[in-house]
């Protein structure tokens, strides 16, 4: 089964929740800017799943997807963008390029989801990325970054989740407290005991919320906000996020940081 499996397909099903991200982006933008966001640039877009879902959501919406990997973009074009039909695909532009340097037309929202910007391992690199993202924003635009943290993010960890016909495995192989570098892997396991292991590997610096906010300020953003996940009565995450300056730490959290240029 592993041999026949398509890692991009499995990744989209196991990891991505474009509708939840888009709902958050739309609601937050309307609240902060008093209008609906129309244009989105998805950095590190991979298969452009979020960009495609964004455009499908409204006839006026457009998207630019930027990724450095041509093969992943080609997969996305074939499996996400083109199958959505010409009314959608003509409003999506895919750019193979480096998010540190790419120049695109100005948009309402630049987003970097699934922690992808964590590939930048120094303050100088992340600052330079944020500056470039800011340059692509309209005056009343927003940059939306997703990050994870919590006490368990600073130790090796393995987490398995059954997802229908396969098991999704998230493994934090290593974490080095001296430089906050972490190596994480995504694997997929199948009922016939075959595996895609690892299907994806990430070498990241684990950034903290205050570091990202300070770098946003250094990159010229006027303000930043943090959105924290509401928990239900059993302490489980809901997909509802609220702006706050203080929260109780958790073993594992996902949050959004939003920058206002």
């Amino acid at each position, binding site marked *: 089964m592993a041999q026949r499996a398509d890692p991009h397909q499995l990744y989209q099903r196991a990891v991505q929740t474009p509708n939840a991200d888009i709902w958050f982006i739309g609601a937050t933008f309307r609240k902060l800017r008093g209008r609906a966001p129309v244009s989105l640039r998805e950095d590190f877009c991979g298969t452009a799943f979020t960009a495609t879902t964004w455009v499908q959501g409204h006839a006026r919406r457009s998207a630019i997807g930027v990724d450095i990997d041509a093969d992943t973009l080609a997969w996305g074009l074939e499996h996400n963008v083109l199958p959505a039909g010409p009314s959608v695909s003509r409003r999506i532009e895919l750019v193979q390029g480096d998010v540190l340097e790419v120049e695109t037309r100005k948009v309402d929202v630049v987003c970097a989801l699934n922690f992808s910007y964590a590939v930048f391992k*120094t*303050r100088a690199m992340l600052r330079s990325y944020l500056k470039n993202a800011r340059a692509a924003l309209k005056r009343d635009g927003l940059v939306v970054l997703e990050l994870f*943290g*919590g*006490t*368990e993010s*600073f*130790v*090796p960890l393995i987490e398995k989740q059954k997802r229908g016909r396969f098991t999704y495995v998230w493994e934090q192989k*290593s*974490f*080095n*407290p*001296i*430089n*906050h*570098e972490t190596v994480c892997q995504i694997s997929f396991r199948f009922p016939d005991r075959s595996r895609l292991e690892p299907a994806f590997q990430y070498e990241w*610096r684990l950034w*903290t*919320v*205050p*570091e990202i906010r*300070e770098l946003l300020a*250094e990159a010229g953003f006027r303000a930043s906000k*943090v959105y*924290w996940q509401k928990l239900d009565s059993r302490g489980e995450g809901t997909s509802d996020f609220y702006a*706050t*300056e*203080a*929260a109780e*730490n*958790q073993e594992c*959290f996902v*949050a959004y940081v939003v920058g206002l240029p």
Partner: protein
Amino acid sequence: MPKSSSQRTRKRISTASRADRHELYERAVQDPESDITFLTRTFERLRGRPPLSLREDFCGTASFCAAWVGSRRDRTAIGIDLDPDTLAWGKRRHLASAPEHVGRRVHLHQADVRDAVGAKSDITCAFNFSYFVFKSCEGMRHYFRAVRSRLVDDGMFFIDLYGGPDSIKEDVTDTDYDDFLYHWDQAFFNPLTHDTLCHIHFSFPDGSRLNRAFSYDWRLWTVPELREILLEVGFRKVHCFWERSDRNGEGTGVFYEPKGPVHAEDCWWTYIAAER
């Protein structure tokens, strides 16, 4: 302070009311001898000469300054602290009773560490995480710049820090010192700012307590952040150390400069050293 003239003194006086928080702090928290050994070894290895002059920022009772000048006859120390009462306590305890040649070689200044008062030194140190009071990159840069300006050309700056998953949990750890218990209370941690509020409490066999003998309102900084800020303000090289563990995973008190990744302990503390 208990009122000695009052009738109330006939009642049993609790240990807590007679206890001196500075004395308890020095016994529970400070270990000047091992810090001096580490500073001396590291400086000699990197600079090829013994360090003689020390500046201790946030020196408190200046016990470290006193131990430093006591460790060699040609050593001098400058202690800087904002709090006049703590400095006065330190003078009485460590300098007034010491031999004259020791007291003469320690200079205490009541000042802000960012004002860079006093002569240049071979080493500046800020220990026991005291510099965590600076909560923004800009504030930390300002302080580190001041430190750099008061170091001699081949001077070095030493700080210590702690971390690990246990450091971002709200929790109390107790340590037994026979005649008292030391309680380290991580009362609050905010993951959105890394602000943390910690207290030190002491309790005694008679059940009395010194609650919140010391309180700290800090930002919990990470190693890579501090390293990058040190480089940004002009320090030429930054060395991060790590404590060697024994077979059971217990700390040995020996610190080394790791070449590769280190094991992420639940709770660790270590040194960073920066070459001017």
